[in-house]
């Protein structure tokens, strides 16, 4: 895996600095907090009451994490797979826009979709009951919501693979083995991308906390959160997170493995192939694509009209004050912190590029980057609190600052950003980079290297702005990001109030995200 020439490049050429920088970031935000939690847990385990631990296996067995993960993966594969296949085989008009939109479900936090679903279909306090009533609070509904919100994880790699598929090869299969044979060839080529997406969605679901909590689905992350936050039971929290970490670690390895087998390692996509020459499927495609996007993109808008924004009682003067405050205070905090995290992720992507590490680490080892991302939000939050809260030491100034929120989001999403950067870098021709090295220049000078990492920044920005599970634990007094504020209003707030803040959050996510994606040239030409 590590060739002598690679080591020479990384270490002797001084590019090890970039690697050290990345590792330092990961250490401060992931490894040290986790180590701190393990160490504290071990110490407290020696003095803890065994009866508390005895109750945990039952709770773990009762949790719906596994079935929720599997069902969500299935939903995401159906929605994401259909989206990618429709876009890449029908090639509707404004193709770049549809490719661009494939990423947008990630920019709508799943808890906003859950809140909208509860407002529209859930039980109503008024005598007229909702469509689904209490049945909405179930793991299949939760899986549906999480699945549509994570369809991008499947749609993007699958779309990218389909676009780089050799049309001649498919044509040959069609001629020699018929339609079914051609389909099998297509499926075999897409399998790594599909599994990559499936592993990503599965890991993403296992670590999700807020949406299952809203949907009243008991999951392991909630158990971990409750053990720590309600009982300060660190050994119990560690015990509960054991199976979770094992599963997500296996997912990380799977993701790396599948990533090494996917077929999008070329900056020159082929012309792809058209499923049909008939004009009608192409004309209908936008409608179908919009339908697939509806749950994640239109639910938050729909809630505005569902007795929320326009309901008479929410036209009281208080709503405007709330909207104004959310816009001026919480939105600014959210933007500032997310932008900082996104810039750091962009910088880390560039550092990765400069280090040449993407040529050194190959195969399933790529998944190692994702291991820290598999730490669930509540666990990361607990680790950060335990590591950075050092009363009487200068560390307290960090603990009492907004940097904790940045650390929380970097801890959760920087590894995912790095993986994305590796995927971007993987597409570049090795020969071009060799030429740059021989010329004594960094591969950063290659066209597009800097610009393309804006995609990493966009994803990290979107996920950070909507992050709740770790932020709720680490947010310092006086700094409430929008996500935390929205969740604080869920219980007693009116639908209109939650809708007003949700709209602000969506605007705070969408506008800079679109800017980053525009910078990256996403959706146009080679970069998708």
């Amino acid at each position, binding site marked *: 895996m590590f060739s002598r020439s690679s080591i020479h490049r990384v270490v002797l050429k001084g590019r090890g600095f970039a690697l050290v920088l990345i590792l330092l970031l990961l250490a401060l935000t992931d490894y040290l907090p986790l180590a701190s939690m393990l160490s504290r847990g071990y110490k407290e385990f020696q003095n803890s009451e065994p009866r508390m631990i005895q109750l945990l296996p039952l709770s773990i067995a009762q949790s719906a994490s596994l079935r929720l993960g599997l069902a969500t993966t299935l939903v995401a594969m159906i929605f994401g797979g259909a989206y990618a296949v429709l876009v890449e085989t029908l090639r509707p008009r404004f193709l770049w826009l549809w490719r661009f939109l494939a990423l947008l479900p990630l920019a709508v936090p799943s808890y906003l979709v859950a809140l909208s679903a509860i407002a529209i279909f859930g039980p109503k306090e008024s005598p007229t009951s909702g469509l689904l009533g209490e049945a909405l609070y179930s793991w299949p509904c939760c899986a549906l919501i999480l699945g549509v919100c994570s369809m991008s994880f499947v749609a993007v790699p699958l779309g990218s693979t389909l676009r780089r598929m050799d049309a001649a090869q498919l044509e040959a299969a069609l001629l020699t083995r018929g339609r079914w044979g051609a389909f099998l060839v297509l499926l075999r080529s897409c399998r790594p991308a599909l599994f990559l997406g499936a592993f990503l969605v599965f890991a993403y679901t296992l670590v999700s906390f807020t949406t299952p909590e809203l949907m009243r689905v008991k999951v392991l992350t909630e158990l971990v959160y409750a053990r720590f936050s309600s009982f300060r039971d660190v050994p119990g929290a560690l015990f509960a997170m054991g199976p979770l970490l094992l599963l997500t670690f296996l997912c990380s390895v799977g993701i790396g493995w599948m990533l090494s087998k996917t077929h999008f390692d070329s900056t020159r996509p082929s012309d792809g192939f058209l499923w049909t020459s008939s004009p009608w499927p192409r004309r209908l495609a936008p409608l179908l694509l919009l339908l697939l996007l509806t749950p994640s993109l239109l639910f938050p808008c729909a809630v505005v009209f569902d007795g929320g924004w326009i309901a008479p009682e929410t036209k009281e003067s208080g709503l405007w004050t709330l909207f104004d405050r959310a816009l001026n205070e919480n939105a600014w905090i959210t933007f500032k912190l997310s932008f*900082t995290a996104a810039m750091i992720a962009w910088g880390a992507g560039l550092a990765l590029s400069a280090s040449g590490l993407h040529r050194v680490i190959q195969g399933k080892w790529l998944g190692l980057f994702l291991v820290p991302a598999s730490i669930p939000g509540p666990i990361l939050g607990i680790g950060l609190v335990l590591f950075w809260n050092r009363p009487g030491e200068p560390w307290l100034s960090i603990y009492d600052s*907004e940097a904790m929120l940045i650390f929380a989001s970097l801890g959760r999403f920087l590894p995912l950003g790095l993986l994305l950067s590796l995927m971007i870098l993987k597409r570049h021709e090795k020969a071009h980079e060799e030429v740059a090295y021989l010329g004594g220049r960094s591969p*950063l000078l290659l066209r597009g290297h800097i610009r393309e990492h804006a995609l990493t920044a966009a994803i990290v920005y979107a996920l950070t702005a909507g992050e709740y599970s770790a932020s709720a634990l680490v947010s310092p007094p006086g700094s409430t990001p929008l996500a935390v504020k929205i*969740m*604080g209003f869920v219980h007693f707030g009116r639908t209109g109030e939650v809708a007003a803040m949700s709209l602000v959050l969506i605007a705070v996510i969408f506008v800079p995200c679109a800017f980053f994606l525009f910078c990256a040239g996403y959706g146009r030409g080679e970069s998708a």
Partner: protein
Amino acid sequence: MNWRISVAVLLAFAALAVACTRTGNSKGVVTVYCSLDQIHSEEILKLFEKETGITVRAKWDTEAAKTTGLVNALIAEASSPRCDVFWNNEVSQTVVLAERGLLESYDSKEAATIPKDFRDEKNRWTGFAARARIFIVNRKQVPEADWPRRLEDLLRPKYKGKIAIAKPLFGTTATHGAALFSSMGEAKAKDFFRKLKANGVVLCAGNAQLKDRVVAGEFAYGLTDTDDFNLARLAGAEVEAIFPDQGASERGALLIPNSLSLLKGAPHSANGKKLIDFLLTAKVEGLLANGRSAQIPVREGIKRPDWIPQKLRWMSVKWADVGKAFKPSQRFLQDEFIK
């Protein structure tokens, strides 16, 4: 290293440094940990800012952690606290902090009109604006003649499997359990909860969920808080609030007040005292009573929401004893209901 990456790294760290700055300034700042929902307390804290010019840095608890999240944070930060005032939406956890020696005595001049039942003997905390533990009854499911009037009506066999309580390990239900342990005595309280379990009582995740399920007709009635009931009432649900044990010889409804305390070693102690004085005023109790949480003023002479009886018989509890009963009651309830 290429100059561009240096610039990118520098920019990122400059942004981090800007973001790392402490919020507010050291003068004119007070830090409050508040477990009353942000929606109810934020406006009041803003009012304090407006009246005094002191910046309030507030941290709220999450619904998932109930009150205990902030209490645990206060315990963890004890050796170097950053919090000045703890505004708890109940009392038992405040008593836990007081027993650990984390609270400073402060006899606010505004506390003079507050009944003794709602104040700590050593002035380590002061109660105000309470919630009551009440029955929420689905009017369609239960005829008026059958409405529960006493706590023991939770044991009626007629409604077996149709009665609910919130999980008694968190929030006000846990406090209620501890209060019963302290007032009835351990043996009687245990007997009551065992009978409750035998009657097929259903455990809901929280009071809000219980309220939703009673409104939906899934349960006939259950035990919840006045603030949760008020949400259902405002939405026009067909439910009734019954304050239990209001007869002359009965124990009365449990009132759980908000509690305010000053942290020992608080960095902005003087401002903390100003905030406590402000929050204990009759004006703030009035605001909380007229708000969506419909908190019940503990002082006489402040108008209560219309649906709350103006003359209310409340359960006389010694909160210090409730604090002591908290752990044994938790252990029993966990063994009895969660296993």
